[in-house]
């Protein structure tokens, strides 16, 4: 499957802890993106990392990409209750228009 596969499927942590979500894939990519979806809403783009980049930061978010292992991780530091959402990795495949989304990780941050 070309689909990105997130791990874990669900994660429950205390406010202030760090949350790490992983994404593995099987094909060659142009870039990898992470999105957040609050319950009942659309997806919101968080961060994009290109295939020639290894790490990227945006506020409390840190994304890594290892193209040799075909995997990426999203780290949310000092989590807040408002971070409770589903997080999706999305693969932009080489040579095409399509973006392939994984099934997501559900994050629950307890206050």
């Amino acid at each position, binding site marked *: 499957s070309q689909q990105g596969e997130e791990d874990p499927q669900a994660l429950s942590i205390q406010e202030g802890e760090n949350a790490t979500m992983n994404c593995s894939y099987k094909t060659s990519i142009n870039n990898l993106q992470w999105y957040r979806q609050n319950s009942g809403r659309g*997806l919101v*783009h968080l961060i994009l990392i290109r295939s020639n980049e290894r790490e990227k930061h945006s506020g409390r978010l840190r994304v890594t990409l290892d193209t040799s292992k075909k995997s990426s991780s999203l780290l949310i530091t000092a989590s807040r209750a408002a971070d409770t959402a589903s997080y999706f990795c999305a693969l932009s495949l080489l040579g095409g*228009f399509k973006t392939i989304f994984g099934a997501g990780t559900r994050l629950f941050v307890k206050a």
Partner: protein
Amino acid sequence: DVKVTQSSRYLVKRTGEKVFLECVQDMDHENMFWYRQDPGLGLRLIYFSYDVKMKEKGDIPEGYSVSREKKERFSLILESASTNQTSMYLCASTLDGEGKRDQPQHFGDGTRLSIL
């Protein structure tokens, strides 16, 4: 900010009805997409369009058609609704063109469609 607006948040229709889902974006984006989202399956691409009157099938086009008569509007049509089309439908848009491949997708808030 880019705004992608889907005409209905919730919709209930009956089996066999023809259903129209509308999506409008206000940032002159070339590419527009329709996905359906089901628990445990992530987002699956139904159709996309890279220009007015142009359309391409995605991964699950059966039972659906689309229309793009104007750049800002992309419509998804369920020709004869069936219960297995009960789902969350998400519209997205993105820029395209030379040097713009690394553009994120901007999503609407979705339409939760129930077919009875």
